[in-house]
């Protein structure tokens, strides 16, 4: 529904506020906040325990396995699939569809809010757990993990919001992607890593962290490729989502 109507900019604000209020009000959101505390707690325990070798590589491990491996994809799943999925499920999306507002604006608002919510938690958890382990001694590592956290939040969320427009089981499908594809297939078959959001984030982290956190590890996807593919995924997911909502039909009740 991108027709002759110029995007009326006034619609984005109300849509953003509505989506944000919807996410804040949900019990699941509280679970995500608690989940985001996990890497900080682990970092605190490791920092107090001390002496477990190189603190920079510890920080990088905590980020890779817990924050990037678990917290960010799960937060993105919860926020991304709820942003529009809840309204589709309970029918309230109709109130947004019968308005002279381009459908792409509705999708954009959902992606903005869910990305902001996920990124806020992800970057905060990343910086806090990083600071606990390395303090200010490795600014490159902090910057690298924070940038990676932001990139991962953005790409995961945008993909999951789009997914929620195509299937009512977006949460399960997304979880399958995170656990089976990124958690299993890409670890076994190196060639598949080029299609892994997690690898794009890892590549970003390694590029910024330099030698500090890499432990000599090589990124499996080059940074320019990772950034280009991330951008492509974001743009494609947005366009597909807008297209899908444009031809969305309310469930038939009779």
């Amino acid at each position: 529904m991108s027709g002759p109507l110029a995007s009326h900019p006034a619609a984005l604000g109300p849509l953003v506020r509505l989506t944000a209020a919807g996410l804040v009000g949900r019990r699941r959101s509280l679970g995500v906040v608690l989940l985001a505390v996990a890497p900080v707690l682990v970092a605190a325990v490791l920092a107090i325990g001390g002496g477990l070798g190189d603190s920079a590589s510890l920080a990088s491990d905590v980020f890779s396995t817990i924050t990037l491996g678990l917290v960010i994809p799960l937060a993105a799943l919860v926020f991304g699939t709820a942003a529009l999925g809840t309204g589709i499920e309970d029918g309230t999306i109709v109130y947004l569809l019968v308005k002279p507002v381009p459908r792409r604006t509705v999708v954009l608002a959902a992606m903005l809010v869910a990305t902001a919510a996920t990124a806020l938690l992800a970057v905060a958890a990343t910086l806090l757990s990083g600071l606990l382990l390395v303090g200010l001694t490795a600014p490159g590592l902090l910057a690298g993990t924070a940038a990676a956290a932001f990139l991962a939040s953005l790409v995961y969320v945008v993909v999951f919001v789009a997914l929620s427009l195509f299937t009512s089981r977006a949460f399960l499908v997304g979880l399958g992607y995170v656990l089976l594809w990124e958690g299993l297939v890409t670890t076994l078959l190196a060639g598949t890593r080029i299609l892994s959001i997690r690898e794009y984030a890892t590549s970003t982290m390694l590029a910024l962290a330099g030698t500090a956190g890499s432990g000599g590890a090589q990124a499996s996807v080059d940074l320019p490729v990772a950034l280009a593919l991330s951008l492509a995924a974001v743009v494609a997911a947005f366009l597909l989502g807008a297209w899908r909502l444009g031809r969305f039909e309310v469930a038939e009740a009779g």
Partner: protein
Amino acid sequence: MTGVVVELTDVSRWYGNVVAVNGVGFSIGAGVTGLLGPNGAGKSTLLHMIAGLLRPSAGTVTVDGRTTYGDPEVFRRVGLVPEREAVFGFLTGRAFVRLNADLQGVRAAADAVERALATVELAGAADRALATYSKGMRQRAKVAAALVHDPGVLVLDEPFNGMDPRQRLHMMDLLRDLARDGRTIIFSSHILEEVERVAERVLVMVAGRLAASGDFREIRRLMTDRPHAFRLRTSDDRALAAAIVARPTVAGVALEGDRLVVHAADFAAFTGDLARIARAAGISIFELIPADESLESVFSYLVRG
């Protein structure tokens, strides 16, 4: 025809192999039109096409001469009150109506919101979250949200569903008032009495087809003049059967166990006949039950007729 005209021309809509709406055509203007039909008749599909939410598979739906689907401008002229009860429970009534005003791009939104809330008499509860509203209040909030941009056409999908009698009367008054302002109002219902009390015009839909349309009294007559079946329990079924089968008002008689089933050819005349004959033959009638009064049978008669 006054008001904003809603016109359907040979409209069909199918989902895969299922035909939900089949060759429907009508034109309505200002006033209240009731869309009557059993569940699954295609009423929601029809209303969604009028509101511009669904593309007709064939035919055209226009509001004010504009094809509804794919024209965002139509959303400014139509207000839709969906059937689903769910609303954004975390918003207050006022915030919900304001959201709709903002998305419609209403100028002087604050005033429009207060007007809409006053129209549905929700001003007093406007600062409470929708989640705390009763069904009737929620329905009124949905009407306020659909009215806030002052549309010429108001489309309501089963607006009386789940309401108690008092809420129902209130909603009926509201629809009549809105129609008096020159609005074109169309609402769906599967309950005859609801439609009878509010609608000036009635469209009867059965199995995706428009079975009847017109003035309510006409439809009512069609519905009461059809053949009726009655089940009777009397002091002597066989004797009564013999006596009434001779009457032209009776189309058929059957003995089913301890009940007598009579098919009346003329409903009004038969009821008079029956009492006279039974009294003359000295037969007592213990029970007289219409056998086919379900709405579905009324509708299926209309489709055949």
